[in-house]
């Protein structure tokens, strides 16, 4: 547990001081909203279309963060240092996934209101609690799979290509869950609670892949 906190603090401090990844993710998301406005030629969108646009934008912004997750470790020998230390190796997975999750939360705190301002037709107010729940579950999926895939990709030759092409298909069930879960919430006279089926699928996905990643992560770190 202490290991997790130490690595997590290191990553958060690095980001706070360097401030590279998070601003890029946020900027990317907002620019993407603008592109969608022009691409779809619509002033406002709602319902399932809005949910789809939001999910896709968050996904690609997350990809930016995922690609950079382990780069510092790889280039500056962090992996070796971690392997030498007498700590549980899966702690690295937990720390990195938590860091990525926090990045995604910060991203959404800014991007979702921006989305509400720029593109979304109906107001966010009543949808917000349900939306937060769906996005939170989706962020767990993005964080877990993103960390796993990033750890695999950083050791290969085609680093930033392998990450997305493995991660995107793996994430599809979670993305389906996010988009379909948020769809009814963002509709014109939408409900304020997300459909139970999709919340269940998201939760199942999160549990299965969190456990699976935890089990296999050790093998990725061996030298």
């Amino acid at each position, binding site marked *: 547990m202490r290991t997790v906190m130490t690595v997590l603090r290191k990553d958060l401090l690095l980001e706070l001081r360097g401030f590279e990844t998070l601003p890029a993710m946020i900027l990317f998301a907002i620019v993407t909203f603008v592109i969608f406005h022009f691409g779809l030629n619509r002033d406002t969108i709602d319902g399932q279309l809005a949910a789809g646009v939001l999910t896709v934008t968050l996904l690609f912004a997350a990809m930016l963060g995922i690609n950079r997750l382990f780069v510092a470790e790889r280039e500056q020998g962090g992996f070796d240092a971690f392997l030498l230390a007498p700590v549980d190796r899966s702690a690295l997975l937990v720390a990195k996934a938590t860091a990525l999750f926090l990045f995604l939360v910060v991203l959404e705190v800014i991007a979702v209101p921006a989305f509400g301002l720029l593109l979304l037709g109906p107001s966010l107010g009543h949808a917000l609690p349900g939306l937060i729940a769906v996005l939170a579950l989706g962020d767990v999926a993005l964080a877990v799979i993103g960390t*796993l895939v990033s750890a*695999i990709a950083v*050791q*290969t*030759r*085609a680093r930033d290509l*392998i990450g997305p*092409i*493995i991660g*995107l*298909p*793996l994430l*599809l*069930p979670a993305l*389906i*869950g996010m988009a*379909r879960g948020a769809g009814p919430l963002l509709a014109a006279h939408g409900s304020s609670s997300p459909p139970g*089926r*999709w919340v269940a*699928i998201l939760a*199942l*996905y999160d549990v*299965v*892949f969190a456990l*699976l*990643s935890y089990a*296999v992560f050790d*093998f*990725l770190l*061996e030298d």
Partner: protein
Amino acid sequence: MTTYGRGLRGLSLAAAATITVALALVFFYAPLDTDQGFIQKIFYIHVPLAITALCGFVFGGVLGAMYLRTGDRKWDIRSYVAIHMALIFGVGTLLTGTIWAKASWGHWWVWSDPTLTSFLIVMLLFATYQPLRFSIEDPERQSRYASVFAVVAGAFVPLNFIAVRAAQQYVHPRVLTLTGGNLPGSMRLTFLVSLVGIALLYTTLWKYEMAAKSTRMQVRALRRALLGEDSVVPLKRSAAPS
């Protein structure tokens, strides 16, 4: 060293016999479907291919887990061949599926069939298996990462199926796949025989491929033993670098 050729003849004969019987049943015994008519016959090749491919991917994951547990390279090669074969059967599934879609709906691709869609997603994922493997140079690391991928992707298959099925359920009531519940007896028998035949074919081809790979590795090992290390030309792209 395991010999994969033993029992291969019996297995391939069983596969050939079962598939022949299945084809006879499909065209001479199974009744005509009331909805789709003759076109429904594609069902008997498409769905067994699909089921076998998906099981092959899960099988590959299990073999990958065995490698992670034991560290013995032979499990990794078995996993590689299982996934490779399942990919080929998957391509067959997609091809027969699009033909069925075109015949039934008039379009080469339909989103309304959950099997086709979840299949596309699984294929997109496993298509990255070989690029991943061959971008890692160190053989031991290659095996390890490939096995991790095989395990995670194998676990993904059932989850993906559930998610896509849930997403498509209420969009189109008529789907291309007949649910197991309401198949009449003669159709069910035909389907089961086809399924067994295709599964036997998969197992035969897996063994066949393992035998070919194993033979090649043994020739190289012999050459290395008899003539020394430097007379062996290193393999360029191989899942079994040795």
